[in-house]
């Protein structure tokens, strides 16, 4: 049994009501297409019983290094990425928004958590 299938089995034991969600997530991760997805997008794709459960499952996978989580600072006008940060501590108070050529204060409104699925 591979490490990833062991991991997904363990997740199914921990979140039995989310077995379908975990199965679909496993298919996406092993699907050969790299994706960058918000929690909202994953909610729509996976249709979990509980959004909180899905967030917990994703955090377990981030901890195990099977997926990564980044903090994406976006330009308020077009939502284009300005820069990604691996941890909240790395996020500066201001960034240069090269989409508009202005200095942008970083607030919750222009910050998105994104999960990268290999």
């Amino acid at each position: 049994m591979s490490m990833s299938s062991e991991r997904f089995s363990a997740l199914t034991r921990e979140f039995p009501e989310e077995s379908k969600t975990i199965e679909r997530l496993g298919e996406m991760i092993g699907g050969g297409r790299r994706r960058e997805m918000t929690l909202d997008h994953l909610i729509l794709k996976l249709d979990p019983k509980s959004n909180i459960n899905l967030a917990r499952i994703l955090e377990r996978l981030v901890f195990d290094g099977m997926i990564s989580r980044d903090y994406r600072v976006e330009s308020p006008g077009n939502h284009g990425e300005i820069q990604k940060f691996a941890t909240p501590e790395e996020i500066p108070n201001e960034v240069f928004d090269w989409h508009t050529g202005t200095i942008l204060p970083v607030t919750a409104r222009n910050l998105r958590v994104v999960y990268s699925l290999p």
Partner: protein
Amino acid sequence: MDTTKTLFELIQRYGTVRELSDFLQSRGHGGGNSWAQLIDDRIKPALEKGKLSLETLLTFLRDAEEYGRQHVFLFRRTAAGNSVPSDSNVRGWLNSVGSLSVMDEPRILDLPETREIAEVRRDPASHSEILVIKVIERCTHDTLLRVTEPDDSGRYSKEYVREETRAVNVVRVHQNGMLEFRLTQHRGASRNYDAELRDLKAIVSGLIDPATLHPINLVKAKNKLYEKRHELNGTVSFSSTHIRDSDGVSHTAACGGQVSLFSFSRTEQSIATLTADGEAYPDSLNVWWLKQEQKPPHQKIHVLLSGADNEFAITQQCSRGDYEHVLGEILRFNT
């Protein structure tokens, strides 16, 4: 300022002559075509004769000032039993914050020095009741008037005018565990309501533990509105959308408010192609609930489904009926 005078001023600020005339006529006091006629000839004599009460006028003000021009944040409360706190809990909390009197006698406030709980009441709802907490606040808004030319030393100045505005913030607690935190929309460009939401939660924290509140994510409502865009033709019109895809690319499409974005075949085709395989979704929508005959909404209602996961905004003043309709539709689409 005396309470009656303040009430008259607020009614004129938030209501219209037509609305007040209809309100008075429906209660047998006669209507009118001007504020002076309605207040001096209809309301004042009726108040003096005891045929009309301030409480009745307050119901008019509630409907006029509490709905619309707000950013609404939806939460689900995870607490055992009925989510609506009992009368004794409400009284205990109000007593602890020195506002017990509002339970029996609402405060009619214009621009209080500090943020004030103006009213706590129970509104009837279908087969249930809703606890309503109203908080009035004085806010300031600065408008740039002019910028002077730099002098010889390069100094220049900016002149602002500061305006005081009134914020009517409302918390509603439903029996099914849902809570609405409704914040008066900013007059300036700021789209960030985090501080106001935190403050409002703090005000009611003695009654509702913020740790028991979980945001109601509205992504399913946005997605279903988008998926049913053709079916909703004549009911909902779309002015802009921001589509986010799994490559990390953002796509924005926008048009004017008099047409629907998806009535343009090239736009419809482009966005449908993006979303066809589920690798892209509508992260935000700018929509209008269109006026209907003989049913709500009775006017065209502009709604922003954007911002925080659990946030929507109604950018114009509206009636309670129209607000409840839009809220109900958003919740229906969110399942």
